[in-house]
């Protein structure tokens, strides 16, 4: 009797331990997610408190559930987080705290997480099946001895990438959050095979995950590079590549990955059942679909939805697709909209005739679901790329002067309409002329690109960034207060000044100054831009390498 009792108690305890491990796994993941997102956020005292509380609780409970090593390590980590909470002047040291949280605490949380696997609980199962939540990119660096690796790691941290350093690629699956969408592995070329194996394994267990393997090394010869390509390595750079170049490359990978699943397609067909089928077929691709069965409304839908591509049925009752295409091309704003015909027309001559009237491709009905998905995806991607090329500054990939001004205007209108705060920032490199004069324009360009990439990486995805002039940048930050904007910019200023640039054997740093204005305080977008520019000018007068807030102006036009 007594033995039976103990037996059932042990079973119950075991069950409880499993549940504890599962729940703790989820909690740790949520926290890793939070820490991962810290970079673009403002001062967040709450997160330190929460983290300390979580660790304190886990320290106290894990041992009870048999996870003794977990408890021990959690206690150590709890101590170090406690030190953060006692940091003097947390707010002004927030950038430093953030970077330590991400570079020291986060990997330790990951280590803690991996200890859960030692429990009897199938914690790893629940990890993979947890609901997907986009957390973007994580960069996994596979440790390598040598100066290049150390310097690379340090520089990438300034850009705000989420970094995890592992001893080898086999540890990868333990250190990923289930919500991760994309992983970029960076390793020395001697580790290529190992990384590719890890990639294959990862993609089998987490199908939605995008994994990119990038190697570095000293080999420049063709056959060596060819071997690496054949192994399946996605990118290769030499150890002479500078950190800004690598950051730029990584950013391009990220934006291509994001763009690959973005896009808007409008489908016009008179057959509503078919439209519904198209919509369903495309619904899992991440591409936004709008369908229309009444061609009369096409112009209002076009201007409201702003699709990247248009799919047009050729024969729609009263209307003829190619004529509709010609009509659309009457409007200058739709001259470059890619149009793809959907038709049962098999005759090549007829198809060519239709294409001549301003369309790009012919999809012959019946269209297989795969063909539809792939065509739409690739076309959307190319269309977006193209419009970006047209809208963006070729050196930095940021919005051109006229477009960023337009964005400031749009945001100003939105602020007025919805009474939400937004800020505009004017930003300028300090003593840039000196950089150009001493190190040449090539080096100057590298500095400009580095700042552009740092801005792209550290600002939020919703923020708009433009190259306003030579070394002058403008940023619009929607739903952002003046103080928030100031904090974010301050973080950027600190990190930018920490970047090391090289010219020949010389190494140097560059600083920046910025002026910020609250869009809501000004009657027009131009006035706000002017105010931010004034604040920037003032900053330069007071001493560079800093951020100034614009003086608000009362209704009489006097500074208040």
């Amino acid at each position: 009797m007594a033995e039976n009792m103990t037996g059932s108690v042990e079973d119950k305890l075991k069950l409880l331990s499993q549940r504890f491990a599962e729940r703790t796994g989820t909690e740790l993941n949520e926290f890793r997610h939070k820490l991962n997102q810290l970079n673009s956020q403002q001062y967040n005292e709450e997160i330190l408190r929460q983290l300390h509380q979580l660790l304190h609780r886990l320290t106290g409970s894990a041992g009870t559930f048999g996870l003794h090593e977990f408890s021990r390590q959690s206690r150590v980590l709890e101590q170090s987080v406690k030190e953060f909470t006692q940091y003097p002047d947390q707010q002004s040291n927030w950038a430093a705290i953030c970077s330590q949280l991400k570079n020291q605490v986060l990997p330790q949380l990951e280590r803690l997480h991996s200890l859960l696997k030692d429990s009897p609980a199938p914690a790893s199962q629940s990890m993979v099946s947890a609901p997907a939540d986009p957390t973007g990119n994580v960069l996994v660096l596979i440790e390598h001895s040598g100066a290049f690796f150390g310097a690379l790691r340090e520089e990438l941290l300034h850009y705000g990438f989420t970094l995890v350093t592992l001893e080898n690629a086999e540890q990868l699956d333990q250190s990923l959050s289930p919500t991760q969408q994309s992983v970029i592995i960076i390793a020395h070329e001697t580790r290529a095979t190992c990384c590719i194996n890890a990639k294959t394994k990862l993609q089998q267990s987490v199908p939605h995950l995008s994994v990119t393997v990038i190697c570095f090394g000293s080999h420049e010869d063709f056959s060596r590079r060819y071997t690496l390509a054949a192994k399946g390595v996605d990118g290769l750079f030499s150890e002479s590549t500078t950190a800004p170049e690598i950051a730029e490359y990584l950013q391009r990978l990220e934006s291509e990955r994001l763009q690959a699943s973005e896009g808007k397609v409008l489908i016009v067909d008179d057959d509503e059942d078919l439209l519904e089928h198209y919509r369903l077929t495309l619904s899992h691709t991440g591409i936004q679909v709008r369908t229309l069965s009444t061609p009369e409304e096409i112009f209002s839908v076009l201007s409201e939805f702003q699709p990247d591509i248009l799919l047009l049925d050729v024969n729609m009752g009263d209307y003829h697709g190619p004529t509709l295409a010609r009509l659309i091309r009457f409007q200058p704003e739709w001259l470059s909209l890619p149009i793809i015909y959907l038709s049962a027309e098999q005759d090549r001559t007829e198809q060519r005739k239709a294409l001549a009237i301003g369309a790009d491709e012919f999809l012959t009905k019946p269209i297989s679901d795969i063909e539809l998905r792939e065509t739409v995806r690739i076309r959307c991607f190319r269309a977006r790329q193209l419009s970006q090329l047209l809208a963006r500054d070729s050196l930095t990939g940021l919005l051109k002067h006229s477009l960023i001004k337009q964005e400031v205007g749009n945001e100003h209108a939105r602020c007025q309409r919805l009474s939400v705060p937004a800020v505009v920032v004017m930003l300028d490199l300090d003593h840039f002329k000196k950089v150009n004069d001493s190190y040449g324009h090539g080096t100057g360009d590298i500095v400009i690109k580095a700042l552009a990439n740092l801005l792209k990486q550290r600002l939020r995805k919703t923020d708009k960034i433009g190259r306003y002039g030579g070394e002058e940048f403008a940023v619009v930050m929607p739903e952002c207060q003046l103080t928030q904007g100031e904090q974010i910019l301050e973080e950027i200023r600190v990190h930018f000044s920490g970047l090391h640039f090289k010219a020949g054997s010389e190494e140097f740093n560059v600083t920046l100054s910025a002026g910020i204005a609250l869009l809501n305080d000004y009657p027009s977008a131009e006035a706000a831009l002017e105010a931010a520019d004034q604040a920037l000018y003032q900053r330069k007068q007071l001493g560079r390498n800093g951020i100034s807030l614009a003086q608000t102006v009362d209704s009489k036009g006097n500074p208040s």
Partner: protein
Amino acid sequence: MTQRSPLKRIMCVEDDEDIRQIIEIALEQIGQFEVLLCENGNLAVEQVDSFEPDLILLDVMMPGMDGPDTLNAIRSQTHSTNTPVIFMTAKVQPAEIEQYIALGALDVIAKPFDPMTLPEQITAIWER
């Protein structure tokens, strides 16, 4: 061992659900005690007089009303002014233990505890 103990009814105040459950199993099934679980100090204050525990097991760190606050409230707002209390905490610095004893606690049990020996541990404190 535990059956012979005069200690019968234990109230346990703990905010963490996992820990509450494991304490329930440990104290009821291993220790054969009658147990009332409360997830916060307010509930403990409400229920302590009707349950009339022999002993209160009190977690120190809880959101809202923490362990010492709960002890104060029980002492000042209920009839259970003399019920012995044992604190549970993951902070086990000697100074803190002294501080809890000064508040009127019998002793402090360090977290993490071993559920299999928790009843013994409590009984030993109780019999001291």
